[in-house]
C-alpha cells in the first residue's frame, strides 16, 4: 500500500504529514509506504497510490486520480489522522 503526502514544496508540511501518517498507521497496526511529494509531481508520484493526504488548498490542483484524496485540517492531531486513514483503508 502506498500513501502520498502533498504540499507546495515537497518538504516541510508534507514531511510533517508523512511523519505523523506513519505514526497513525503504526497505531492502527497497518503498514504502508508513505512518500512526501510536491504538487507538481503528484500525478507521477501518486500514480500507484491508494491514498493522498493533503490540505484543502491542493485538492483541485491534484485533479483526477484513482487514489482517495483525504484532507487533513490539523497535521499534529494524531486522532484526526488515524480516524481518516482508518475510514479510507478499513
Amino acid at each position, binding site marked *: 500500500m502506498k500513501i502520498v503526502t502533498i504540499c*507546495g514544496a515537497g518538504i*516541510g508540511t508534507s514531511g510533517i504529514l508523512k*511523519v505523523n501518517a506513519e505514526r497513525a498507521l503504526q497505531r492502527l497496526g497497518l503498514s504502508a509506504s508513505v512518500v512526501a511529494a510536491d504538487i507538481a509531481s503528484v500525478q507521477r508520484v501518486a500514480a500507484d497510490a491508494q491514498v493522498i493526504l493533503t490540505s*484543502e488548498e491542493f485538492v483541485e*490542483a491534484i485533479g483526477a486520480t484513482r487514489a482517495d484524496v483525504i484532507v487533513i485540517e490539523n497535521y*499534529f492531531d494524531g486522532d484526526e489522522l488515524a480516524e481518516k486513514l482508518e475510514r479510507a483503508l478499513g
Partner: protein
Amino acid sequence: MSLPALADRAIVLGVQARDWREAVRLAGDALVDSGCTTTEYTEAMIRMVDDHGPYIVIAPGLALAHARPGADVRRDGLSVITLAAPVEFGHAHNDPVSVVIGLASAAADAHLGAVAQLANAFNDPAAIPALAKATTREEARRILDGGSTVAAGA
C-alpha cells in the same frame, strides 16, 4: 538533518506583524540573521502562499513557512517567531496564527529528521499555546525540545 540548537537570532518573541506576509517575512529574516538563508528564500516562502494559498497553517495557531531547497539555503535551519497579536492567513480552520516556524533545508530528503522533531514537540496539543506565550528564548527552546507541559506550568 536533526534540529540544530536554535541560535538566539533565530528566535524572535512577541513581535508585531501587520499581516501574514509580514509574519512570514519575520520568520525569513530570522533565518537570514542566523546564517541559514539568503533574502531570496524569504521571498520564495511568501510566494508559496501566494501561489498555493494558506496551506502552511497546518494546525490551530501555527504556520510552517518554507520553500523549496535550493541555492538560497546556505544551511539547514529553523526559526521561531511569536506574534504579539495573532494574524489571519485566510485558513478555513486554523486561523488566527500566533506562531510562525521558518524551515530551511538544503536538500529535499535531508529534512525529515528535523520535521520528525517538530512533530514530537507539536503533537502535544499544549505546545503551540505554550510557545505563543513564551517570554524567553530558553522557554521556547524547551518547548521545541518537547517539554511544553513543563513550560506551560511554569
